[in-house]
C-alpha cells in the first residue's frame, strides 16, 4: 500500500474516533458527505473554481538565494501559501469544508483558532456563503493576535475569548466541541487542522494536499528534479501534511517537520509534542500528547500562537513512528531570528509559525550541503505578528534596531 493511501480512521495505531456519543451522528454524517463529495466531479469543480477566483491558487514558488546564503548555500525554494487570500494555508481547508456544509444544509460555522488565521479564514467563508459564525480563541491568543480578532469581527464573526485551562488553542478546541454538542443540528464545527476525531484528520489533509501537489510539479519544472528535502512547521500539522503528502511515496525526498521548541526542550516550556510527548488520546484521536504521568494534558508554550498545542495530527504520529518523516524542535529565538532574516534578505515577512520552518531549513542547509534543494512551506504571512515581533526585537536590540 502506498503511504499516500491512508484514509483513516486509523493511521497505524493512531487516529480513530474517541468522542461523546452525542457527536457520533454528526461525524458519521460528515464522513458520508465527504465520501460522496470526493466522487463528485461537481464538488471538485466548485472547489477548484473558488481556489482559482478567490483564494488565488495555484500559489507561486519563490527561490530565495539571499536567504539561502545563510543556510550553507543549499537552494531554498518557498511555497507561497502566505499569498493566499486571508494570508495562510488555512483557507484551503476552510473553503473545502464550507462547500460541504452547504451540502449538509447547515447554516452556522464554529471554529477554534490559535494564531487567528484559521478563525479569519472561517469568518471569511461565513461571509462569502452567508452563514453565521462563532470563533473560539484562547484569551492569551486574543491578546497576542489582537489584529486578527479585529479582522474576524469586521468580517461579521463573533469572537469568544476562552478563559479556562491554559487559555490557548487546546482550550478553544474544548469550547468549540461544547458548542457543537449543543448546536449540532444547525452547526458545523470547522476544525482547522489535521487533528480531532475521524474524519477530520484525513479530510483536512485531503483539502491541504493541494499544496504539495502544486509544489512538486513547480519544483520539478524549476529544477528538473524532486527536492532533496521538504520542511514545514507543525502545530496541529495541516500545512506540514499538506506539503508532505505529494512526496510520501518519493523515498528520495526527506521530510522534516519543525515543532515549537519554546524556551528549549529542557525548559519544559515548549510545544514539541512529537519529540517530548507520548501516545495518548486528546480531542478525539490517539496521537502523541504532551501529558503528565496521570494523562493530564500539559500546557504547551510557544511564541507562536498557531503552534502552541500539546497534541498533533495522528498521521504525523504514524509518519514519525514509521521513520518516514523526521520531527525536530525550533526554539522561539531561532524562529524569531529566521523571521527577521527572511524579512531583511528577501523582503518577505513570514508568520512566526512559518519562521519555525525557515529556521529548520537553515539547519538542514548546513547539514545537507550546497547541492541540496530544500522546499519550505511558507504557510502564512507575518502581518498579524507585527506587535509580537516589534516587542521581541525592541527588547533584544534596545536602542538600535540598525545593527
Amino acid at each position: 500500500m502506498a503511504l499516500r493511501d491512508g484514509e483513516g480512521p486509523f493511521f497505524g495505531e493512531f487516529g480513530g474516533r474517541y468522542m461523546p456519543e452525542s457527536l457520533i451522528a454528526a461525524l458519521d454524517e460528515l464522513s458520508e458527505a465527504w465520501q460522496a463529495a470526493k466522487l463528485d466531479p461537481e464538488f471538485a469543480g466548485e472547489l477548484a473554481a473558488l481556489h482559482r477566483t478567490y483564494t488565488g491558487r495555484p500559489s507561486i514558488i519563490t527561490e530565495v538565494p539571499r536567504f539561502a546564503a545563510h543556510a550553507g548555500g543549499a537552494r531554498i525554494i518557498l511555497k507561497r501559501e502566505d499569498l493566499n487570500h486571508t494570508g495562510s494555508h488555512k483557507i484551503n481547508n476552510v473553503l473545502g469544508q464550507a462547500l460541504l456544509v452547504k451540502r449538509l444544509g447547515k447554516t452556522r460555522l464554529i471554529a477554534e483558532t490559535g494564531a487567528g488565521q484559521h478563525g479569519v479564514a472561517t469568518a471569511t467563508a461565513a461571509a462569502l456563503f452567508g452563514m453565521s459564525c462563532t470563533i473560539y480563541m484562547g484569551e492569551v491568543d486574543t491578546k497576542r493576535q489582537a489584529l486578527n480578532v479585529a479582522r474576524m469581527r469586521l468580517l461579521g464573526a463573533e469572537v469568544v475569548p476562552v478563559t479556562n485551562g491554559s487559555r490557548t488553542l487546546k482550550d478553544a478546541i474544548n469550547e468549540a466541541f461544547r458548542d457543537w454538542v449543543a448546536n449540532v443540528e444547525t452547526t458545523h464545527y470547522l476544525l482547522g487542522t489535521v487533528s480531532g476525531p475521524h474524519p477530520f484528520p484525513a479530510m483536512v489533509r485531503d483539502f491541504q494536499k493541494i499544496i504539495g501537489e502544486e509544489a512538486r510539479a513547480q519544483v520539478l519544472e524549476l529544477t528538473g528534479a524532486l527536492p532533496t528535502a521538504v520542511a514545514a512547521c507543525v502545530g496541529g500539522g495541516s500545512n506540514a501534511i499538506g506539503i508532505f503528502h505529494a512526496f510520501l511515496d518519493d523515498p528520495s525526498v526527506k521530510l522534516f517537520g519543525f515543532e515549537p521548541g519554546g524556551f528549549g526542550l529542557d525548559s519544559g516550556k515548549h510545544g514539541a509534542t512529537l519529540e517530548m510527548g507520548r501516545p495518548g488520546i486528546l480531542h478525539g484521536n490517539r496521537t502523541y500528547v504532551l501529558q503528565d504521568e496521570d494523562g493530564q494534558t500539559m500546557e504547551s508554550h510557544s511564541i507562536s500562537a498557531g503552534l502552541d498545542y500539546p497534541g498533533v495530527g495522528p498521521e504525523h504520529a504514524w509518519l514519525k513512528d514509521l521513520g518516514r518523516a523526521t520531527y525536530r524542535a525550533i526554539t522561539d529565538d531561532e524562529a524569531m531570528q529566521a523571521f527577521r532574516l527572511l524579512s531583511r534578505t528577501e523582503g518577505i515577512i513570514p508568520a512566526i509559525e512559518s519562521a519555525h520552518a525557515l529556521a529548520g531549513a537553515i539547519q538542514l542547509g548546513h547539514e545537507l550541503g550546497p547541492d541540496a534543494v530544500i522546499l519550505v512551506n511558507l504557510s502564512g504571512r507575518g502581518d498579524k505578528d507585527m506587535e509580537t515581533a516589534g516587542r521581541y526585537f525592541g527588547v533584544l536590540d534596545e536602542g538600535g534596531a540598525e545593527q
Partner: protein
Amino acid sequence: MSASPVADAIHAAKAAQGGALIGYLPIGFPDLEQSVEAAVALVEAGVDVLELGLPYSDPVMDGPVIQAATQAALVAGFRVKDVFTAVRAVRERVRAPILVMTYWNPVLQYGVERFADDLKAAGGAGLITPDITPDSAADWLAASERAGLDRVFLAAPTSTDERLRLAAAHSRGFVYTVSTMGITGARTDVDAAARTLATRLRAVGADPICVGIGISTPEQVHDVLRYADGAIVGSALVKALADGGVSAVASLAAALARGARDTPSLAD
C-alpha cells in the same frame, strides 16, 4: 451476564420508591477529605448510587460548574491514584455502589487492566465513560469483563437505533440517557427529547435506563422517574458543595431524594 451491583441497586430503589437517585460529585473537590465527606453525606441523605468524577484537564462534556470544580481539584493536587483512596474510604462508611465517571486518557495512561484491578480492589462498581463509545472501547470491554466491573455507555437523542442497540448491548449497570443535546449544567426544562429517547432505549432492550444532564430540582427528578429507572444529578450538587459545603450538599440531596420517593411506582 454477570451480576451488576449498580443495576441491583437501581432495581431495588425502583421497587421501594419508584426509581433511583444517582448523585455526581468530583473527587478531590474541594479537597480529597471533604469530597469523601460529601459523597458519604449524599448516600446518608438518600442517594442510591454514587457517580464520582475523576478530574481531567480537558473535560469536553462538562459545563462551567463542573469544569470549575474539577479544575480546582487539579490545582489542589489531585492525582489519579486518589480515586482508589476515595472510593475505598466512602465504601467503608456507606453501602451504595460507586461508579467512577472518567474521560478516557487518564485510564489509558494508568493502564486499563491495572485501573480495572485497582478500582475493583477499592470496592468500586465500574466506570461511566463519556468520551468513548462501545465501538472504540475494545480494551475496556475486555478489562471490565475480566474484572467483573460495570460499564456505563451513553445514548444521545441523535443516536441511531443501531447505535442505541450498541449502547444497550455493551452497557452493564445502566444506560446513560443523555437528556438533551448539550453539556452538563442545570436547565430549567429537561428536554422532551429525554422521554422519547428513553422509549427508544426500552424498545432495543436497555435496562435499567437512567437520565442525566440538566436535572437539578426535586420536581425534575420526580418527572424523570415517571419514565426512567434513575435520575442523575450533577452540577446542582457540585454547586451546592462549592457554595455551602457538605451541609448544603446534604440538604439538597435530601430534597432530591424526597422528589424520588414521591414518585408513584406505577408510571403513567
